[in-house]
């Protein structure tokens, strides 16, 4: 199958004189055209570091390893001047904090037009026209082109940021918790918008969130991360019907679901391991209820287990085997 993005053994290590923290410990995944891949995990699992590595926007203290191909170009080793031609044009990103992504002293029209003028060398007038149609596309009245960020609501700001990210028609859009700071109704609007944009432009999306139920609403596939590694990848339906990794199972049991009257929620004892350096063996072993001898010795690889599913667990079969 054709792949728009393929990532092989991506590593991110933050180095200070005292310690080296391996935030992402070697993850691989790929993205088909028009696919929405969810990256799930709790804070500190490395999901944002992995995404920022693909955008090459990590601080200097971070060391990136592995390979990532977008349309045949390996982007992790590209020199910065080459990367700046790819960033926003082939791969773009929106963040949780739309406020911080916008310049408070410039109109949103100008800010959407800016990438067009810089990267695609559009003349100013044409760039502003294009900005107006982009705004309309994300359902903001084009009259608001001359508004400043503070004049927009939180939801509108995030739409404006999405319009900015889409200005140069990227192949891949990374959305890093874009609705976490927003209300549920606005969140539903943004999710709807992103789905439409995928259908319309054939955009491929990496959607990062801690909220598994939210990912279920938008993603075709979900990769669950724990302590810097992907522990399970599965089509959305399959993951919810039959989670295979013990961490995924626990996580799904910990979520409150509307209309499901649970007496108690699953909890996971303990805390994720420190990653400076990561411990030997399976990183989830100390908190796992299926732990066995093999788990303490080596990190299980992410192995295919049929039907587009992969899991990194020695004992994923447990008592039952997926049909």
């Amino acid at each position: 199958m054709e792949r728009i993005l393929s990532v092989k053994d991506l590593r991110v290590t933050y180095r200070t004189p005292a310690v080296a923290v391996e935030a992402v410990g070697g993850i691989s995944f790929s993205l088909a055209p028009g696919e929405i891949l969810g990256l799930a995990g709790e804070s500190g699992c490395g999901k944002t570091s992995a995404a920022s590595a693909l955008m090459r926007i990590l601080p200097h203290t971070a060391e990136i390893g592995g390979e990532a191909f977008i349309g045949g170009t390996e982007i992790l080793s590209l020199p910065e001047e080459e990367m700046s031609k790819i960033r926003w044009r082939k791969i773009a990103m929106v963040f949780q904090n739309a406020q911080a992504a916008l310049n408070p002293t410039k109109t949103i029209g100008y800010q959407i037009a800016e990438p067009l003028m810089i990267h695609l060398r559009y003349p100013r007038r044409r760039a502003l026209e294009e900005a107006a149609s982009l705004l309309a596309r994300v359902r903001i009245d084009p009259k608001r082109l001359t508004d400043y960020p503070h004049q927009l609501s939180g939801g509108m700001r995030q739409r404006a940021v999405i319009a900015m990210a889409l200005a140069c028609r990227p192949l891949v859009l990374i959305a890093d918790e874009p609705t976490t700071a927003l209300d549920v109704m606005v969140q539903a609007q943004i999710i709807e918008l992103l789905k439409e944009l995928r259908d319309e432009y054939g955009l491929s999306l990496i959607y990062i969130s801690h909220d598994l139920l939210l990912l279920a609403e938008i993603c075709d596939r979900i990769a669950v991360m724990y302590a810097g590694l992907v522990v399970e990848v599965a089509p959305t339906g399959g993951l919810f019907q039959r989670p295979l990794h013990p961490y995924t199972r626990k996580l799904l049991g910990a979520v409150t679901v509307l209309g499901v009257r649970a007496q108690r929620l699953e909890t996971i004892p303990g805390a994720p391991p420190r990653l400076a350096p990561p411990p030997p063996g399976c990183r989830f072993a100390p908190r796992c209820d299926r732990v066995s001898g093999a788990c303490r010795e080596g990190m299980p690889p992410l192995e295919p287990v049929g039907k587009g599913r992969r899991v990194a667990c020695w004992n994923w079969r447990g008592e039952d085997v997926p049909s």
Partner: protein
Amino acid sequence: MSLLEVRELTVAYPVAVGLSAFFSRRYLVAVDHVSFSLPEGGTLALVGESGCGKSSTGLAVLGLLEHVEGEVLFRGRDVLRMREKERREFRRHAQIVFQDPYESLNPKMRVRTIVGEPLAIHRRRGETGRLKEALELAGLSPPEYFLDKYPHELSGGERQRVAIAAAVVLQPKLLILDEPVSNLDVSIKAGIMNLFRDLQDQLGLSYLFITHDLADAFFLADEVAVMYLGVAVEKGETDEVLSHPLHPYTEALLSVAPGSGREKLILAGDVPDPLHPPPGCRFHPRCPRARGRCSEEVPPEVEAAPGHRVRCFYVSRGERDPHLEEPKPIH
């Protein structure tokens, strides 16, 4: 008799708009004639989006806000009109847990001082025994390990448990939970939600649970009140509201909750500016069922089924007005 009875509670905040503030004060009405009651040992969830007035309601119930009207009856006595001594006694019975455990604990205090503070303020003997007991109750064991720690030495979940320990150390009756799990990771949040259940069983606590997360509300609460722009638009038992939502806003809100499995009724636009609320029913500009009347009159609260109250013209006696077509998803 209910432990807490709130009648026609209205909360306003003065707003300074340039020079005009100098001559006439303007007010933003954050909570508009909200009534509800909370039985002893029960849990009422106030749900709604940001700016709906749910947090202001919580603070007003504790008598922490100015410009408040209405009545807040705690065991029949009005908190808003209590004398100093009586209010002090009330404060011993009503405690609050805030959203952000990074903000709600003084960074310069050790856990020992934080949890012992309610005892000190109410001049109760602060023996270490009681502190340890409270920490154990909050699931921090062994308590000795935590007593001399500073907040920055603890994880987010542990800090929230410290805040909970401080809230239960005086053995209160009422706990206001103001978005207590919104800043926590899923697996930690689950532990705290279970803890609230356990504490209620062990201590007979009543909760006023303020949250934007409907699934959390329905997990913990016996009753819910859905708020929109300062108005409680629908109230009732959780199962009843979940299975028969009557107000169009409740319906939309339930449909967009991730994992609800309902057909999405996505409302367009944003919640209006609370400084300039729409006339009539506050929800009418976004309501799929709005008629001429909705923009002119404020709908009264009607009891559509026993204990199930709605503020909408087009709901009566447990049924929606049959002449109205079903709402359609917008856009």
